[in-house]
């Protein structure tokens, strides 16, 4: 019996060693040696040179600063988007739900260069919106800001609403309140901006070849990461704990902060780590929308490429090593979180089972 089972389960010895050797070899050649080499090259002139390469050059300094600005903005925007999207997908039935789930994955399959080109076509000064952006680009900003504020108010309201599980008459009643408060917020924020002339008038608003374009491109490329992590986590947890919190008298906000967020915490952190790693290292989409203006729109990956093209190998490798270090830290954090999340998950599985 035992020997039969072993035969059925295991492959021949040559195969075992062959596959292991192949895998190890590929990892060594493609990953390990290049990573070590990056650090070796970067540090070949000594620590002093390395430091100067990284921080003495104002353009390089700016690229680090820019990456550390763009990535967090994209990550925060994606967290908000991901919580909203996964909440909607898990909790509600609505037309287009399947389509939304599919579209979340789109950035995984679209080439980043194509994504960058899309943004250039739409937001470029020669693009569809170009005429408007050139003439009086900022005039749209009050509306955008007012819109964001209104959406935020409505979102907060409907989270509370969802928890109230309204009866028929309560539903129509509260719908009116939600719509009214949204409209009121929109009007108030809009009027304040217009009255105080917050935004410059009759100036062109640069999106492409400027920081907003970088943020947009980075967001597009990274937005599946958090949502992809959250949707299965939320689905696995199910609505029961939230219902339990409500039945104990918690409000919608209390339920969200005390039950939902702690439950999705590790999934969220994991998603954020992955998203951040990609946001920091993104090259293709950013390359197209940045325009390579030195000291203005060069992020770290773009800076590396430029230094490399200028035959400044030590400089290029220094920035590359910084980026690699960031990646290694991400990997460590990811592994740690994975372990923690796994522990929580198995604990959760037991909670549902209920075997003594």
């Amino acid at each position: 019996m035992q020997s039969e089972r072993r035969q059925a389960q295991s492959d021949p010895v040559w195969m075992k060693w062959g596959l292991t050797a192949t895998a190890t070899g590929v990892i060594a050649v493609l990953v390990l040696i290049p990573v070590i080499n990056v650090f070796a090259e970067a540090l070949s002139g000594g620590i002093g040179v390395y430091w100067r390469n990284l921080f003495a050059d104002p353009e390089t300094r700016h690229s680090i600063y820019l990456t550390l600005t763009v990535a967090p903005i994209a990550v925060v925007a994606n967290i908000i988007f991901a919580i909203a999207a996964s909440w909607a997908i898990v909790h509600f039935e609505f037309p287009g739900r399947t389509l939304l789930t599919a579209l979340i994955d789109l950035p995984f399959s679209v080439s980043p260069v194509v994504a960058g080109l899309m943004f250039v076509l739409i937001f470029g000064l020669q693009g569809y919106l170009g005429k408007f952006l050139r003439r009086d680009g900022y005039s749209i900003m009050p509306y955008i800001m007012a819109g964001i504020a209104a959406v935020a108010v409505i979102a907060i309201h409907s989270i509370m609403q969802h928890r109230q599980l309204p009866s028929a008459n309560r539903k129509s009643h509260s719908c009116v309140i939600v719509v009214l408060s949204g409209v009121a917020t929109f009007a108030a924020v809009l009027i304040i901006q217009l009255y105080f002339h917050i935004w410059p008038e009759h100036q062109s608003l640069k999106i492409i070849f400027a920081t907003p374009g970088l943020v947009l491109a980075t967001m597009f490329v990274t937005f599946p990461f958090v949502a992809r992590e959250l949707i299965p986590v939320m689905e696995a947890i199910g609505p029961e704990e939230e219902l339990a919190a409500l039945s104990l008298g918690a409000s919608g906000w209390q339920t969200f902060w005390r039950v939902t967020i702690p439950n999705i915490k590790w999934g969220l952190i994991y998603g954020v780590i992955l998203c951040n790693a990609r946001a920091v290292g993104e090259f293709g989409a950013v390359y197209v929308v940045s325009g390579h203006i030195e000291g203005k729109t060069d992020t770290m990956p773009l800076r590396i490429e430029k230094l490399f093209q200028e035959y400044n190998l030590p400089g290029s490798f220094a920035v590359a090593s910084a980026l690699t270090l960031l990646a290694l830290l991400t990997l460590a954090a990811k592994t740690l979180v994975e372990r923690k999340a796994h522990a929580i998950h198995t604990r959760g599985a037991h909670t549902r089972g209920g075997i003594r």
Partner: protein
Amino acid sequence: MSIEVRNISKSFGAFKALDDVSLQVPKGQLVALLGPSGSGKTTLLRIIAGLEFGDPGSGLVLFHGSDVANYRVGDRGVGFVFQHYALFRHLSVFENVAFGLRVKPRRERPSKSEIRQRVMDLLKLVQLDRLADRYPSQLSGGQRQRVALARALAVEPKVLLLDEPFGALDAKVRQELRQWLRRLHEEIHVTTLFVTHDQDEALELADRVVVMNHGRIEQIGTPEQVFQEPATEFVMNFLGSVNVFHGRAEGGRLRFSNLEMHAPDLANGAEVTPLRIFVRPHDWTFETHDNGTPCVRATLRTVNAAGPKVRLQLVTDEGDVINVEISQERYGELGISPGSAAFLAPRDIKLFKDQKDLLATWRVAQDVTVEEERLLSPEGP
């Protein structure tokens, strides 16, 4: 607090989960909602809790006589215990129980030390005070169940609603918890509704049993009532095992299987057919010879003597399979084995017409005569 449900219906798409259900639960009672899965019992419980709502315009839920349609679940004063407990997995046992107190508005919230006192009292009540610092994942199923109960009781609910409270537990723990819940109810006397598909649980625990099927209430009554006087064939079938026969009544005589007996009063001697006849396994008198009592002749096929009762399976020449339970003593006296001839005299017969309403309950006395105890639908067909 008393609960009343008036004409509630609930559909999920084309499926009717509840069909015009009305129910009254007096204050302080322990009531079981009993039915197979899909009978609508959990839906009814969730509608009472305010976790779900009946179809628009379909009916009312009244607590203490007043409509609660505009109260959300947290404001109804109900404690709800979920089937899979739904404990907060990231909180300790103590924090789970304290949750309902901590989320109260500042004005009503007890002080830290009061919360501590209340939670520890509750944990003592459910005998878990030593495990206050554990997490749900570190508890057994029975312990989780008790934490869920303590958590629901922490907000001092006026109504306690339990969804399959012992569904996920093994038989032994289930038995213990059942008795413990009964004692707890006697101690705190909160109006309690619990959902179950286990008829033993309902019959043992509840003051009143509501038997449900296909989104309708089949019968409401005390455990004795629903067991002894089932209103419908479904109730008879669901509460314990039965032997079913097709039969007919004609000219004052009742026939089923190979038995024929005198029944002069049944439907005043008029012909009733088809008739469905139910006899519970423990309602047979087993004899090895014909003593003149109306009886079914059968051959013993299998014997299972493991357990407090001996379970016998017999088969008649006509092919009817009959399950019979007799006491161990009787089994010893009879000295029977598979293949023995048997004469089975029914002691308690229930007759149903058209798969539905109870037509009559018969107690057959030990002598030859047949006595009709009552005729529940005297107008008859």
